[in-house]
């Protein structure tokens, strides 16, 4: 870059209007800029820095919510409703409950944790990063075997449905750590088909990824949450019986932000449960929607 | 027998050439940029002329009329380049035999014979990186010979070597010229190499042939001044060793019935020798001078005189069947009244005769 400026300056000084660089000069600078362009870009760097580095506002005005990926859409709507009623903005970070728990344990900033199962919330509480007393179950869900739209299979019962898939791949969360996968494994064990099916499973990093694989038609079927399947317009081949213990979404406080408890209260309020029901989730204690 | 006729234009340079190359060593001489390397590339098949015809031993290598253009590998033209171009990852032996194991050439000379000819036995298992310039060129020559070519082109093979290396390799080239059996086209801008090695000489200048013929004839022609360079102009004479004078370390040569005395050289009586005499070392007289230190006084007949713009005149004289050139001042030429047909005497300082070399024929 420096040589460009120097050559340019020399040329201008020598009274040459058009700065045609000599062959040797050109070879070293393939993307030569004239001086004016260079100075423009250099002066705009500070401007970018100011804009990009805008620091987060004080956490009193924003609430950071770490939400399980299967819950992401509902969390967005809840956050918007919460903001409308309280004026407190929310920032949603959605990923698998496992990923979020590990991030928070390693120091990621969050105020509220919405986990798709109890285990991860307990794990985080054991690490001292979550207030165990604040844990509350706020929603439930159902597990379904779904197939891509337009590929409905005519079969009743799980075994027949699985046979009808002709050995194709079945996407679900990774049973090693994703709540969806753990629920799916428990359900398949409960139905007595786990050993047959496990080699056909594609384990994904989060519930959303499993849903996308089914929705895009790249896999034959998926074991996903009923709420997600409906939201993505998938054909439902089989509905798993309610799990025991049931699928439970739990919420807990990670930080001491005052807005946190207000959000947890909002989850249980009429406005909150309205949003939950609209997204196909069930309510705790079998409350109707 | 190689017959070449090519025409080509490239970037303002025009090459229009027609030559015939027969047995023995034919030298192609010209200044840098005269078109020599271009011609070599065209004969070898590395460059395509715009128009023309190249025939080697009756095989058509290139003919623009009938769209024949044999690729280099099928022409059986051996080339030795200025830089040896040895393959660095192969041993000298594998390099030498490349034409046979990779080029599929049959009927090649025996490896042992070529090694003898060029002194390569001790180099066979070495890597090309470790060879000196002269050794590398000898290997390159051997490699070209072992590919059983119908003709050998040497494109300024010594131009990248220093004086010592060139002196080292010239005797080998001499032997090659005698004993190889393959016709050789030797391209060079060094007159001393040519006078030592060549039988025939073709002079090329500015993309055109200006002279061709036996080397002794061509080299003494006056009108070649611009092509050959004034400084080097001279004559080539052929003679025989007559006897040796041990006491004074001299050798007497006989030349068309006359005698020349030179510093002692090796050789038996009757051995043919070739002499290079620079025109500026020759003086002329109308009478045979007495009481003079110059021993070599030859009776000559004036054949041609060329007066130049400057102070000099070039005089071509005949000694028997051979030609000897002299460079004297215009003033002296007029004072002496020299004219074609006149009898005169050429005075050549003994010590000015270039060290005689063994003639190739």
């Amino acid at each position, binding site marked *: 870059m420096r040589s460009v400026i120097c050559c340019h300056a020399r040329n201008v000084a020598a009274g040459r209007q058009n700065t045609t660089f000599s062959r040797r000069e050109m070879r070293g600078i393939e993307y030569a800029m004239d001086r004016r362009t260079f100075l423009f870009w250099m002066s705009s760097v500070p401007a970018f820095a100011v804009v990009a580095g805008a620091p987060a506002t004080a956490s009193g005005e924003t609430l950071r919510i770490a939400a399980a990926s299967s819950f992401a859409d509902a969390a967005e709507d809840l956050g918007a409703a919460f903001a409308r009623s309280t004026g407190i903005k929310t920032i949603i970070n959605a990923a*698998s409950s496992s990923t979020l728990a590990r991030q928070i344990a390693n120091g990621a900033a969050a105020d509220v944790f919405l986990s798709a199962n109890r285990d991860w919330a307990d794990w985080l509480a054991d690490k001292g990063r979550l207030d165990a007393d604040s844990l509350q179950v706020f929603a439930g869900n159902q597990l379904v075997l779904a197939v891509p739209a337009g590929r409905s299979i005519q079969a009743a019962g799980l075994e027949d449905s699985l046979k009808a898939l002709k050995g194709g791949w079945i996407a679900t969360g*990774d049973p090693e750590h994703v709540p969806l996968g753990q629920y799916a494994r428990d359900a398949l064990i409960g139905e007595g088909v786990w050993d047959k099916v496990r080699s056909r499973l*594609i384990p994904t990093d989060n519930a959303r990824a499993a849903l996308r694989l089914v929705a895009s038609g790249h896999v034959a079927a998926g074991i996903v949450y009923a709420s997600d399947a409906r939201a993505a317009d998938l054909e439902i081949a089989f509905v798993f019986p309610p799990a025991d213990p049931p699928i439970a979404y739990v919420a807990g406080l990670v930080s001491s932000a005052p807005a946190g408890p207000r959000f947890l209260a909002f989850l249980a309020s009429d406005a909150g449960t309205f949003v939950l029901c609209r997204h196909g989730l069930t309510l705790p204690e079998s409350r109707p929607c | 027998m190689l017959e070449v006729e090519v025409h080509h234009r490239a970037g303002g340079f025009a090459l229009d050439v027609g030559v015939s190359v027969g047995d023995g060593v034919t030298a192609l001489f010209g200044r840098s940029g005269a078109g020599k390397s271009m011609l070599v590339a065209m004969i070898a*098949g590395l460059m395509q002329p715009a128009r023309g015809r190249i025939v080697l031993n009756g095989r058509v290598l290139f003919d623009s009329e009938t769209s024949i253009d044999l690729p280099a590998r099928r022409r*059986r033209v051996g080339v030795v380049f200025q830089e040896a171009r040895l393959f660095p990852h192969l041993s000298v032996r594998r390099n030498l035999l490349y034409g046979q194991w*990779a080029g599929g050439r049959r009927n090649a000379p025996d490896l042992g014979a070529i090694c003898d000819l060029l002194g390569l036995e001790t180099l066979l298992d070495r890597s090309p990186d470790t060879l000196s310039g002269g050794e590398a060129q000898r290997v390159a020559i051997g490699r070209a010979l072992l*590919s059983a070519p119908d003709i050998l082109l040497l494109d300024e093979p010594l131009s990248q070597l220093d004086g010592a290396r060139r002196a080292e390799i010239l005797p080998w080239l001499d032997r090659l010229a005698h004993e190889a059996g393959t016709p050789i086209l030797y391209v060079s801008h060094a007159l001393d190499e040519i006078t030592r090695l060549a039988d025939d000489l073709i002079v090329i200048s500015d993309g055109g042939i200006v002279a061709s013929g036996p080397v002794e004839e061509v080299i003494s022609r006056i009108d070649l001044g611009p092509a050959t360079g004034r400084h080097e102009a001279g004559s080539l004479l052929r003679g025989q060793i007559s006897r040796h004078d041990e006491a004074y370390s001299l050798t007497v040569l006989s030349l068309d019935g006359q005698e020349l005395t030179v510093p002692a050289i090796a050789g038996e009586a009757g051995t043919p020798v070739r002499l290079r005499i620079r025109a500026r070392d020759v003086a002329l007289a109308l009478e045979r001078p007495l009481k003079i230190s110059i021993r070599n006084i030859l009776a000559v007949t004036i054949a041609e005189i060329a007066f130049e713009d400057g102070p000099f005149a070039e005089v071509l004289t005949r000694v028997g069947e051979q030609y000897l050139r002299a460079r004297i001042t215009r003033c002296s030429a007029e004072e002496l009244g020299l004219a074609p047909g006149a009898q005169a005497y050429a005075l050549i300082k003994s010590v000015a005769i270039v060290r005689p070399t063994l003639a190739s024929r």
Partner: protein
Amino acid sequence: MLSTEAVSALTLSLKVAGLAMVVALPLALFAGYALARWRFPGKALLTVLIYLPLVLPPVVTGYMLLIIFGPNGAIGRWLEQSLGLVLAFRWTGAALAAGVMAFPLLVRPIALAFAAVDQRLEDAAGTLGAKPGTVFFTLTLPLAAPGIFAGVALGFAKALGEFGATITFAANIPGETRTLALAVHTALQRPDGDMLAIGLSMIALSVGALAVGLSEFAASRLRRKRRA
């Protein structure tokens, strides 16, 4: 002692990277030679395509592979119907992803190596009677070999460690496509997976270092042989 998970991830990584190299190398030799030596229409476009996986986020490359070679993809469907070959979610698909990501890293050193071979030597070989194919195998290729080895080392290391494209195109199926990189990723998600993650990382490090070391050794042997 290596756990079964580690062994599975290791053998899978070697299989995937090995197949990727076996298929990518001849293509890279051809592409490298073409880029170094030939002039042809569309050369600039070809260059951009070859280096695209280097500049795109790996996940994007994986996604494009899914679109083209996946069960719904044009080529993927054709492969399944005519050859019975399925790549998505298979270790062969992981090899494809790894090969595509490693390809630019192979081509660049190879193209440089071919460009560095003195074409005057090739001319000389021609005058000695060698056909173009012979010249390539006896002269060009051996002279370019050290550079080619460097490319292979780079490409193999990249194929071993490939993550983004693999997990997107071939998914993270244990025993089928869960290579070392994916196994480390999965271990990190587990509540108690730290030790396993470290162990797998050590294995990945050793294998990568070994691959690079071997290739450097081979290249230096070649250079030394020439100097002898």
